[in-house]
């Protein structure tokens, strides 16, 4: 495991200083770290464990339990598509297929240019205006495939060539494999500096992506 970059270590310690004396602080601390760094770098786990007098296994166990927590840097924008019943009743599955085709990635993956991470979510509480999506912290209702393209372009810039790629076919293929590592690492540059794309983290990313349905995070 690579060491934490200096600025990351500082950020983690700052969050710990603010929150460690509160009752049951671990989730609060993890939220704080993810808010400041975009994800929870695996080398932060021992530091958090020591400061909170927990075992590393306990901290890792909590991170891996909750879909919200990430151990790899996300894309610059996070697109979440609701897959729950109400949205399904209004065409969410077609929207999801469209998004996969348009972005050229599967759910729980990040585009090669690091612009967009695509996640499934189970309910955004917008069930009277299904199907709903969330881009970063903004929600959108009654999203058609056309509206999806507009919204993503508005928030994350124009979509690149992947659109023509077949569904989960060749276009998506290379992303899942070895190529995903360096791409993710490079894309994460602005977020976490040089240390943000450790090979370990990237490998975990592609494993999580490949797990698809059940192991996927929100």
């Amino acid at each position, binding site marked *: 495991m690579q060491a934490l970059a200096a600025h990351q270590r500082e950020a983690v310690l700052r969050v710990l200083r603010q929150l460690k004396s509160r*009752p*049951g*602080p*671990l*989730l*609060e601390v*993890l*939220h704080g770290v993810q808010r400041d760094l975009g994800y929870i770098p695996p080398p932060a786990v021992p530091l958090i464990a020591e400061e909170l007098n927990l075992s590393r296994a*306990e901290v890792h*166990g*909590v991170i891996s*339990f*909750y*879909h*919200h*927590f990430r151990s790899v840097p996300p894309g610059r924008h996070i697109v979440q598509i*609701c897959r*729950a*019943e*109400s*949205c*399904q*009743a*209004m*065409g969410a599955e*077609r929207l999801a297929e469209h998004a996969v085709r348009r972005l050229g990635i599967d759910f729980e993956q990040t585009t090669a240019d690091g612009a967009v991470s695509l996640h499934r*979510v*189970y*309910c*955004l*509480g*917008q*069930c*009277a*205006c*299904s199907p*709903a999506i*969330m881009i970063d*912290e*903004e*929600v*959108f*209702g*009654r999203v058609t495939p056309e509206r999806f393209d507009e919204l993503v372009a508005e928030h994350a810039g124009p979509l690149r060539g992947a659109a023509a790629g077949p569904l989960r076919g060749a276009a998506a293929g290379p992303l899942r494999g070895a190529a995903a590592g360096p791409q993710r690492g490079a894309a994460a540059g602005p977020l976490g500096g040089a240390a943000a794309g450790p090979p370990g983290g990237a490998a975990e990313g592609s494993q999580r992506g490949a797990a698809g*349905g*059940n192991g*996927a*995070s*929100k």
Partner: protein
Amino acid sequence: MTTVVYVPRDSGALALGAESVALAIAREAEARRKPLTIVRNGSRGLYWLEPLVEIATSAGRIAYGPVTAADVPGLFDAGFLEGGAHALRLGPTEEIPYLKTQQRLTFARVGIVDPTSLADYVAHGGFRGLERALALAPAEIVQAVTDSGLRGRGGAAFPTGIKWKTVLDQPADRKYVTCNADEGDSGTFSDRMLMEGDPFTLIEGMTIAGLGVGAAQGYIYLRAEYPHAHRILDEAIAEAYRAGYLGPSVRGSGKRFDLEVRLGAGAYICGEETSMLESLEGRRGEVRVRPPLPAVKGLFGKPTVVNNVISLASVPVILERGAAFYRDFGTGRSRGTLPIQLAGNIKRGGLVERAFGLTLRELLYDYGGGSASGRPLRAVQVGGPLGAYVPASQFDTPFDYEALAAIGAMLGHGGIVAFDDTVDMAGMARYAMEFCAHESCGKCTPCRIGSTRGVEIVERIMEGVDREANLALLEELCETMLHGSLCALGGMTPYPVQSAVKHFPEDFRRSRGQLAAGHLEGERR
């Protein structure tokens, strides 16, 4: 006098463009030198009309909707600031039939007040319940809630007053009041609307609960998917502290009540009360074995009230108007009013608060206006992802706890998700198992393993592999999950599955050719 214009900041309205409408109105007003004040209220819950813009006139509030930013110059031209005629004019808001026929007790202020203005809250009757509670003994507060007949609105429907009495009767150095705001059921959004539209009602309800059971600390466990509600709650809590409604001496009573929001992290299971407590303590949200009940040994091992947002937000009106007032609404053992949420494939989706007793048909057609797609409604799922699918032949069932239980369904958190006739019920049964597998905490085997096996069995049935034997196996698996799971996730996932098999057997016995044709039909929508 400057005109007051209401443009909701409810996230549902924002999801449909309310922010750009508010900006366009502000810009246009400035360009035309028309002084006005824009209040960012909650939503009235008429989502097919959002963004719903209201103007305060001498004849009451006049509604226009659904408004887009492009409509704004035209609205000014039509004199909408004086309530002028326009194609989008809906007339006085309170006269819109969908709203006029409702009985809003818990949602009395939602969509009307400025959610983070304490002065507005008080001006609309806020904190009267708390003032009354401060004059009562704890046991009297609890008795009032018991007498009101209020049952837990989160889904389990346990009598709220009985739960509070258990906590009150526990000798302990510390007790807690926790609010379950992990509203994860698809088709439900009443918690969100209330927190975004009238957060002080929840704060007041929790403070009354603290006074009633002798707890000085409250936590709102809010799902991470609700960032708008989070911001609004934090603003409202800060206001309440500033004005002395929270803190070391609530309204100078000498009684302490502190309150804060704790964020969940995207785990559906944390809506289960013991799992939520684990999560609040900073651990994996694994279900606890009961007994002991949380009311005896809950958060940090102390007696704890765990109530849903709507249960707690119904308490102020009970204290203010009296238990009998609330109890007089409703029917049988379902007392009071219920905020019902119409969702999915429905023309007029939104929030309907009424006394218990309406039928599903009245809700789906009189309020909901039928399907959004214009096709016949085929099924509704009541009570979230663990609720049964109800076929059209049972739409005359009254929407109350006992009547739904009698047909093998449950009311849950009051959400209704409508599906038209393109739905593939075998696919929905598979999804129910998939969702359980995705969200299982892993502590008990029937849920953790059973759900994955369930997905596989439904898939085999859909593919026509050994169909009758697999249907029998699915039934057996469902019974095992039902009786052998630790909590409602594994224990109730069989409901949607079994109800789909029971009411829509044809969907599980289609040939592949028929399936493909059905899929194509769905594509044409």
